[in-house]
């Protein structure tokens, strides 16, 4: 499973930047049956969080109706140079992280 993150490398102080996140994930609903007729177990991302300098700036809860390979986009005001961290957790409790550095000058 990989992730594509689209974020500018640098921004002016106070600039509103757009952050786009595309996560490779099957988002299996848990309602479908497989070829053997048995239910395919649910496998979805339940939450996506973004931390800017360690502070939570964005969070989304995801549900079974969200498409596979979900796309999440949001805006952020760039104040200070620092790390932007993305954390997403699936229904089995497995957490993935990815971080980017934003330079504000």
């Amino acid at each position, binding site marked *: 499973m*990989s992730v*594509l993150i*689209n974020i500018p490398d640098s921004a002016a102080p106070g600039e509103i930047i757009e952050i*786009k996140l*595309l996560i*490779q994930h*099957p*988002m299996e609903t848990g309602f479908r049956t497989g070829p053997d007729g048995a239910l395919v177990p649910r496998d979805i991302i339940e939450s996506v969080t973004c931390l800017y300098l360690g502070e939570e700036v964005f969070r989304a809860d995801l549900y079974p109706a969200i*498409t*596979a*390979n979900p*796309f999440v986009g949001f805006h952020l005001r760039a104040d200070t140079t620092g790390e932007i961290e993305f954390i997403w957790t699936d229904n089995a409790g497995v957490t993935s992280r990815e971080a980017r550095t934003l330079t504000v000058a």
Partner: protein
Amino acid sequence: MRRAIVFTVAFLLPGLAWSDDRRTGYDDMNADLQALQDDPMNPATFWVLDGERLWSEPAGTTAQSCADCHGSAEDSMQGVAARYPSFDESSGTAVDLLGRIALCQSRHQQTAQPRDRSDPDRLALLAYVTHQSRGLPIMPDEDPRLAPARARGEALFSSRMGQLNLSCAQCHDDNAGGYLAAARIPQAHPTGYPQYRLEWETIGSLDRRLAGCMTGVRADPFAPGSPELVALELFLKSRAAGLTVEALPIRP
């Protein structure tokens, strides 16, 4: 009749540019879906990246990678997807690109063959190889040994099949541009396979698309990679000669 003439010209003069009224699936999509396809950050990119990784990963009992023989895919695989299906010397049959990758894996890497021809790793390799032909015109292989299979594909295209007793041509030639329920009927030019279908939520090969159509007319679909499907692809590619390869496309 006019379209029949266009196709005859297309068949006799493959690779030449001409003005025509052919439309690809991309032309028929709405602006939002076109924007999704044009954005490099679309879900199909995951498979291209997976394929790029697999290209240089040793596999099989010979522990060879694709790159060991073919070098950089950017150079060696450019234009390959634009001319497939091709003729395989040792089996004496036409093979599509997915079949060629499977043959390479079994002959040169000696990998254990997955039960599913469209195994995810193999599809990712197909996606990566096809990506090297993006933007190039479809140039069907002119090897004369492919002619019988291509003629068979043309015959299959206009053969009625299934409980609905419909041929490909009845929708995709006679009624292209019309609607089947809410879906626009395309002219069936295979400009971009594999493709990411929102309906599938993953990428799939032309096999899977054709099987979907055949199930739709309530026919028993040809097996993935069967000579019939390769023949159909040969005909469809010659019909689409000169159109641009999309890699990878998004479809609804």
